[in-house]
Structures are given as C-alpha cells and as structure tokens.
C-alpha cells in the first residue's frame, strides 16, 4: 500500500478468492466511461466515506470519475439539515422559502458543475434537485443512503417529483425504498477492510491504545459504539448488561462522540458512577483508530438502536470476528445472520439473555465471530460494492460501446 490510499491490488489479501481479478475484467470493458459523483460535502457522512474510497479506485481502473461538491449560501446548511431530517421521517419545519433556497442552490450549481458524463450520481437530499438542469445524453442516478420508507409527507411531496426525473434511484436495502415512478435499485453499503477503522492491528498496539482510552482489559468486554442519544438506547444496553452482570463478571464499554448537550450522556455517566465496570469513552472527532481498538478488544459487540439507517457499525464489528447482538432496526437484521453470526433481538431482556448464552458457551463466541467475518467478506466489503457500481454503470449505460458519449 502506498501513501495515497489502498489500490485495488491491496485488497487481494482480504477479498474473496478471484474477486479482484474479476473486478479488473469488468472495468476493462467499461474503460473510458465517465462518471460524476456529487455530494453536499467532502467531510463526514455515509456518502463521503464511500466516495473517498471508490472514486480513486474507479479512476485507477480507467473509469474517469470526478467528485463534485455543492456550494451553498449561508443558510444552506440549515435548509439541508431540515430537509434531510424530514426525509428521514423526523418531523421538521420546512418552509417554502427553504425549499426555494434548495432549488436555487441546486440550479446555480447545475450551471457551475461539469455534469456532462455517462453517469451522474447525486447523493442524498441536498443534491437531489440538480436533476432539474440535466442535459440530454447521460444517465442520472439518485443515491439515497438513508431510510426513505416513512418521510415527512410535506417534504416528500415537494421533492418526489424531482426523483422521478432521474433514470433510477438507489437504496441501501429494499425496506428503505419509497414508492417511485422511476426504477429503483438496491446496493448495500460496505466497509473498507483496509481503512483505519478496520485495518489489522497488532496486539501490542491494541493494548497500548486501549490503555490510553482508559479501558482495562481485565475481563470480557461488552461494547456498544454510537452517539449518546435516546435512539441508540444506551440506557437499554446498561440494563441488558445488568441482567448479565448478575451471572458473569464483565465490563460494559459505551463509546461515542461527545454530544452537543448532556441529555442521555448525563444519565449514562450517572449509571457509570455507581459501577466501576461501566466505562464511558468519549471519542475524538476522528475516532477511527479508537473504534478499531475497542472493537478488537471487545468480546461481544452490541448494537441496540431503536432506529437507525443501515447501521454499518455492525459490519465493522463482524469484520473483526466479533459476534454481534443487534436490534431489528434499520439494516441491522440484514447484516446479522441470527444464530450464526450473532443474534437479532427486540428487547433488553432478549439482549441480556443472548449475552448470557454466549458467555456461557464461549466456543460459540469464536465460531460466530468467524462466521461473521466470512459473511462480511462475501457480502459487505468494498470490493463487492465496486462490483455493484460497475454492474450498475454497465446496466444503465448499455453495452461496452453502446452509450459511451462523445465517441
């Protein structure tokens, strides 16, 4: 691996047998196609994480891929925040003025950005309205990374006509899709096994980092990572831990970014103050190495949100060979193969029972962890994601010579 990030060849050691050569073959046939990806930012969020990885590799493969970013005015961020939450089903006040601002921003960016390509992919709500300025020729794809199954009606009614102007929309799972007149495809998210979050880590480095995080490795660790908010249900996780603690001497680690306001974190810290085996870790702004450390140190990983989108933390833990006990929210059930790689549970009591079952049958921990890693290797690595992108590119832009523009 060199300093500019992993090359496709670097994935041979971790991807399924034959898959890298296969990707090279597919790309050979699509060489010369042009793709433009458009997101609202280059920092933070699901689209950025995947575009950071996929765009350089696509270019290495000879598929000319650019990544453009919207430029917005001073109030644009607030508009984007409200519209995005509205689409995710969180009731918002979205005014006509805000929608007009979104439209105007997309219109001015459509004039500014070089959107002449075989395939234009816009990501999430902020870029959706760019399609209004599409020129004939290339195909347009709207990639929505969240859950669009129950959007705020007022927001959705205003935006849906624009989705239908696309050639297709792509969702992370069938259950996240909204009914549309245009075609709908499914591409599951992925993790990058060579990223800082998921790279191999020597035991010595892991021990050193764990100590720095203030997490003793003196007993089995139960871990949940994620923001300290009620939707992640950290208090439910503490209650599940307490059911287990009556029978097994374990440590619970709850790790997440420091929230803007106290809220649930204060309640979590209050609970931790009475129990030395509950450790709260406040993660720094770039927590990838710390997350890697904690997931590798964990015995069992919990992901028990009440509501989530795809829930990629599950795949990241499974890649590290950990059994995951997760709720049936969002995309979590599609990652956990219940009874094989972990358990999908619906209640605090279910989580407690399954943790106890694993701790009482430690051979299951290793077996489920190994099965989980293989499951991720075959279904949720970036190499599979690249294959899906290339397949979609081939499908939407026709055969190898068919729809190439400018030739």
């Amino acid at each position, binding site marked *: 691996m060199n300093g500019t990030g992993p090359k496709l060849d670097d994935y041979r050691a971790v991807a399924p047998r034959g898959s890298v050569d296969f990707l090279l073959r597919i790309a050979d046939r699509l060489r010369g196609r042009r793709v433009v990806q458009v997101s609202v930012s280059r920092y933070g969020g699901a689209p950025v994480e995947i575009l950071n990885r996929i765009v350089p590799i696509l270019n290495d493969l000879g598929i000319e891929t650019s990544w453009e970013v919207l430029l917005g005015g001073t109030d644009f961020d607030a508009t984007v925040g409200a519209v995005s939450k509205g689409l995710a089903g969180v009731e918002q006040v979205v005014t006509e003025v805000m929608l007009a601002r979104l439209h105007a921003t997309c219109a001015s960016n459509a004039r500014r950005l070089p959107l002449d390509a075989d395939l234009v992919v816009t990501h999430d709500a902020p870029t959706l309205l760019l399609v209004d300025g599409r020129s004939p020729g290339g195909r347009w794809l709207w990639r929505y990374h969240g859950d669009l199954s129950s959007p705020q009606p007022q927001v959705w009614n205003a935006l849906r006509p624009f989705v239908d102007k696309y050639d297709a929309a792509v969702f992370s799972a069938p259950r996240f899709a909204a009914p549309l007149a245009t075609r709908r495809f*499914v591409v599951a998210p992925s993790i990058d096994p060579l990223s800082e979050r998921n790279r191999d880590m020597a035991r010595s480095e892991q021990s050193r980092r764990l100590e720095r995080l203030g997490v003793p490795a003196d007993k089995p660790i139960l871990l949940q990572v994620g923001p300290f908010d009620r939707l992640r249900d950290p208090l439910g996780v503490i209650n599940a831990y307490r059911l287990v603690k009556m029978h097994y001497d374990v440590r619970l680690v709850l790790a997440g970014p420091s929230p803007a306001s106290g809220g649930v974190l204060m309640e979590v810290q209050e609970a931790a103050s009475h129990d030395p085996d509950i450790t709260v870790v406040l993660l720094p702004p770039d927590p990838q190495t710390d997350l890697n450390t904690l997931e590798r140190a964990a015995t069992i990983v919990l992901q028990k949100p009440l509501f989530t989108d795809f829930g990629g933390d599950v795949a990241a833990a499974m890649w590290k060979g950990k059994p995951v006990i997760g709720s049936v929210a969002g995309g979590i059930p599609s990652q956990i193969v219940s009874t094989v790689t972990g358990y999908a549970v619906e209640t605090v009591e279910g989580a407690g029972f399954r943790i106890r079952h694993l701790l009482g049958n430690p051979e299951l921990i290793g077996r489920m962890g190994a099965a989980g890693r293989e499951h991720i290797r075959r279904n949720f690595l970036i190499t599979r994601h690249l294959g899906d992108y290339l397949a979609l590119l081939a499908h939407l832009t026709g055969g190898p010579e068919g729809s190439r523009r400018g030739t």
Partner: protein
Amino acid sequence: MTIDRLDSPAAPAHPPFVFQGCVHVCEMMPQEAHDTRELLESIKQVPAESIFCHTSALLVHRAPQPDAYPNDFALWADLELHDRRLAERLAAVDPFRLGSIEGVRAELVSTVEQHLQQLSGPPPHVGEPFRFLLYHVVPVQTGHEARTLREFRDALTEVDVSTLFFHIVDARYRLGRGRGDFAEWMDTVLGRPELAELLGHIDPYAGTLERVRDRHLIALNRALEEDGRA
C-alpha cells in the same frame, strides 16, 4: 432476471471452456405482498426472472446458515407471517427437481393455494411485506479457459465464485441449459459422460457457492487421480 451483454454470449459447450462470471444489478419490482393471498397473486404476476431471483438465484446472497430456507418465500412465511407450516411447504419447492422457473412458479402457486384452502381464518398479516426483486445479470469473462480436465480443475480453483452461479444456476434454471455448462462440456467435449453425470447431480442448493465449488473440485480431483492411476 434479465441479462445485459457485457461480453460475448455465454460460452457454448465447445472447446475450450471459457469461464464467465457475472455481476448483478438488483432492481425492486412494484409488487409487495402483505399477506398470503397477496403473495399468491404477486407470484402469479411477476416476471419469471423475479421468481428466479427469490428461489434459484438465492445462492448469490444466501446467508451461511446450514439450515437456512432455500428460498425467500419460505423465509418470509416463517419470519414475517409466523406461519411455519407454509414456510416448510414452500421450502420443499425444489428448483433442482423442477428444472424450470415456470415449473417453480407453478409449484409455488399450487403450494400457497392449497395452504390457503386449509386455513381456517383470514390469512395473517405481516410485519414486513414481501418485496419482490429482480436481478439483472451482467456476464463478464474471467480470462480463464480450459482445454483439459486438469486445466478445468485449476481454473475452477481460482475463478470468482460468481462463475459457478453463471455456469450452473443461471445456465441450468434460467436459460434451461440441461445439466449446466460444466457437465455439458465434460460430456460433449471431453467425452466424460460419467464425470458429467456426477457434476450434473451436485445439488447447488446444498450450501453456499463456495461449498458447491468444493464439491466440484472433489469430483474433479478424484477423476484426475483415477486418470493418473490408469
């Protein structure tokens, strides 16, 4: 499932054997079923490729469960309808035995109809609806070719696992190419009818595609050992 020609058509059974893999584009159909009756109506309506996607093609995305249901309909009946009897009956619909997608559809319809007749009350409603999908197959040459049994074995060891799907499952069940491309080539090109028979009887639904690859390799290795002894 529809097919997008990214390369030349699938290699016909003449020398050499050209290994092709495939990638899939997963498209959502408008049909959704919220109970058993809607499932029945949708099974009757959707394109054959969608039936293929939820039955024969399940090998592409099946979970590593040794006792997993062999099709999405059975899994849904169990998990969402909580109707274990229907799940078990749907699980018994065997593409390997039926040989064609329309045959599979007919048996699914018959199974659900019979089950509905035996239901004493209204069909139960579900948590999550059954969402019908369809796979578009994009075939891609792997660059591997074989002219001899040994070359065939060596290539099969290395190719992307989708190659097995393309030459066994897609060829056999969607395209109706008899025993699948491997068995046909063994028989008609290498003149090995017994080996062809052996490969043609490997049940692709007995495990994951990697398991199917292993079972093929065991048969091929045994044949090569016997050749060495002869």
